[in-house]
């Protein structure tokens, strides 16, 4: 017993040391309360069940510990001979059953509320891609400018590779967050363009799988403006750990302003697709797009990870006929992880990244591809 006591003491002391050493670090022990009615209900339910379980644990482990301390042979305990009692068995079948019923009642109530997706004021499509999210805001009619964009991890590869210090929101930052109004019922329509993903924001208590070919829905009313972060929660391949979710909840007026701005920006991009791109701009923008979309597979320096992910540096497809490069980017490569980017990037971005891969990593074609050329290629297939 003494040796065990020492062990426990040692364990307790070392635990204490760990804790004090990391006091400034986050020692988050519990689920967030969150910022929606649903998340608070979920938290409440979680705590109710937790305390039930603790109470049962105290009784069961207490009885066990008491027996271990008092009914040991070294203390001269003589074994009793009882070995069955139908009465006792019935009692400890019924009591847990009643406790479970008490747990089931609030659980049923909360779950039913989660299914009430009616009367939404704003609908947003969420589409999972390997490995980014697309958010498309539903319009009232086709003439309205559409707001639709990809949301991609913005943490740099240098941070992930430990070559520079990690930023505060390491792995939880994106280039363009989803923006929603507060105090508004927002309905999410979820699907996937490739494999399963799951869209999860803990502060909303929402987690739903996005399934290719099928549409799922859920909803949220966020009560406090703020920035809320989450991650993909269903294994979706190599970069599963690198597709975070960021949602900005803005007061409704600010949201309206943001939305109008996005519509205008969308219109401008269409205009700009007719403009000329300079080599410097193309390379700069291309590099940025490469680092967000391509670097996971094709790696820094375009060396790839052969044989699955081919190198870009010196590759035939990047240095040969520019139409081949364009075809690869726009249409993807069948039967490989190379997706069709023709509908995921706009013509300016495509022109920039095509120019980039044809002129970076020692590929010196000197080619400058223009958005108009890409646009024509997409429209006419040549």
């Amino acid at each position, binding site marked *: 017993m003494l040796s065990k006591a020492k062990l426990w003491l040692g364990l307790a002391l070392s635990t204490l040391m760990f804790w004090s050493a990391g006091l400034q670090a986050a020692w988050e022990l519990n689920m967030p309360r969150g910022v929606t009615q649903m998340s608070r209900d979920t938290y409440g339910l979680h705590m109710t069940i937790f305390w039930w379980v603790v109470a049962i*644990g105290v009784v069961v482990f207490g009885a066990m510990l008491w027996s271990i301390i008092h009914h040991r042979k070294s203390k001269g305990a003589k074994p009793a001979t009882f070995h069955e009692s139908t009465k006792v068995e019935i009692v400890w079948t019924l009591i847990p059953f009643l406790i479970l019923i008490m747990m*089931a009642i609030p659980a049923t109530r909360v779950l039913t509320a989660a299914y009430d997706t009616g009367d939404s004021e704003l609908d947003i499509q969420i589409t999972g891609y390997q490995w980014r999210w697309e958010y498309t805001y539903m319009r009232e009619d086709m003439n309205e400018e559409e707001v639709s964009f990809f949301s991609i991890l913005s943490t740099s590869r240098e941070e992930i590779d430990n070559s520079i210090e990690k930023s505060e929101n390491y792995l939880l930052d994106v280039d363009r967050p989803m923006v929603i109004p507060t105090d508004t019922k927002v309905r999410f329509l979820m699907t996937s363009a490739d494999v399963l993903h799951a869209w999860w924001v803990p502060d909303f208590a929402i987690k739903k799988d996005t399934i290719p070919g099928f549409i799922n829905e859920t909803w949220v009313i966020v009560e406090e403006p703020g920035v809320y972060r989450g991650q993909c929660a269903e294994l979706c391949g190599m970069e599963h750990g690198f597709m975070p979710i960021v949602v900005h909840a803005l007061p409704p007026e600010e949201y309206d302003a943001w939305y109008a701005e996005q519509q205008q920006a969308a219109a401008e991009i269409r205009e700009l697709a007719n403009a000329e791109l300079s080599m410097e701009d193309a390379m700069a923008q291309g590099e940025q797009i490469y680092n967000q979309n391509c670097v996971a597979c094709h790696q820094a320096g375009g060396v790839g990870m052969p044989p699955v992910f081919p190198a870009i540096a010196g590759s035939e497809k990047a240095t040969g006929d520019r139409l081949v490069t364009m075809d690869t980017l726009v249409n993807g490569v069948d039967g490989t992880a190379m997706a069709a980017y023709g509908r995921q990037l706009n013509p300016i971005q495509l022109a920039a990244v095509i120019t980039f891969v044809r002129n970076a990593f020692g590929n010196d074609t000197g080619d400058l591809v223009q958005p108009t050329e890409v646009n024509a290629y997409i429209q006419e297939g040549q």
Partner: protein
Amino acid sequence: MSAAHDHHHGPAKGITRWLFTTNHKDIGSMYLWFSFAMFLLGGTFALVIRAELFQPGLQFVEPNFFNQMTTMHGLIMVFGAVMPAFVGLANWMIPLMIGAPDMALPRMNNWSFWILPFAFAMMVSTLFMEGGGPNFGWTFYAPLSTTYGPPSTTFFIFAVHILGASSIMGAINVIATILNMRAPGMTLMKMPLFVWTWLITAYLLIAVMPVLAGVVTMMLFDIHFGTAFFDAAGGGDPVLFQHLFWFFGHPEVYIMILPAFGIVSAIIPTFARKRLFGYDSMVYATASIAFLSFIVWAHHMFTVGMPLAGQLFFMYATMLIAVPTGVKVFNWVATMFRGSMTFETPMLFAIAFVVLFTIGGFTGVMLAITPVDFQYHDTYFVVAHFHYVLVPGAVFSLMAAAYYWLPKWTGYMYDETLGKLHFWLSFIGVNLLFFPQHFLGLAGMPRRIPDYALQFADFNWISSVGGFLFGFSQLILLFVIIKCIRGGKKATAQVWEGAQGLEWTVPSPAPYHTFETPPDPALIKAQ
């Protein structure tokens, strides 16, 4: 039958003894060694995972290789370590416990073992193939494992077919042995609980391993023959895959825990020197758990978007499992109550099993609550939950069994000091490893990620330290076993003062052939 020829002979010499043996003890030993080797291999993969997760950032492995490690760790531990270990114990102990001379189908027994190494050689070899091994998780959800799987997936499918065949043959053998080979006087309700739990487990295996074989066959067809069982493009449904998989997968979870219940129900009475409390209710509880395991599968899929009625049904059914499981735990505690306990290594592992398995059970009840499961699902909370029921649950029961029966197998007592050291290091290691993962999951860390946000850093390094402590402690077990085989204090036939049952009536080590004439019915007592 060959067993008839070499009556009264000892084992053959050399490698052929092991290749062609039909002796249940030899085959049992081979299963146990094989599973131990797989345990170390799967453990090594786990240490790769824990090393990568020791700190934020990518240090040691690429994300794709990390995914192969999580996948292989799961597959090897489930199919290579835990299941074969229980089959090994069944081979060794069931004939000894029911007074049978051998398993009912000795030659099939030999095949069912020997195809296993081939299955796992094939599975592990995929790691060296072009495109790498399976990287889609041990649950291999479509379409990640079909349309988007690596080329080696075909070999993975064949490996699953083979190990499934092995499990089915093993299960048939166990059922035939228990139904047909019991000594006179050994009625069903006098059988030790380990035999009972294995009988029920074997029926579960017969029911669900063919479904698993069906699922991987459908995958094979989707990949190579243009069918669309799981491919939305052809009118299939990826969610169907999950329904089929978990129809196998949930009973599979109980396949890995029911025999553990049997082991603990043998060890606790021995060291409490008191009969097991509520034997009948233990049998009924096991059967109820087995039945319920068939109607709760979709609780693994609460986030796929089932209709409300479906969610409620699976939530209620899942919560119900707590009732028979609770009965078991209460019975074990009642067995200890007013006993005369000593705390040798098997008992320490058995007590730790009851406590830590119950903690895993508690988180299981929490996970059953659908709306809260939306938060827990696919986070480290789930990882903590199922590792609590599988590691200090199933694996601790296996270690308890190894220490408990080692003297009967080898004829020598194991080193008690080293055994206790192994227990305490494992106990501390396993809790350090898995308890913080509850916090990580609640704070929002998804599972199966090779890198994580900074707020998860502290609990992750604690978990990794625990992982390495637990992992390396297992070398002590290896050492203890080898030491015990090579010699030590001679063991008596009875071995443990409070032990009951036919296996303790034969000498230690158990002779190559036992119960060639049925035991005296007077020796067969109610459990």
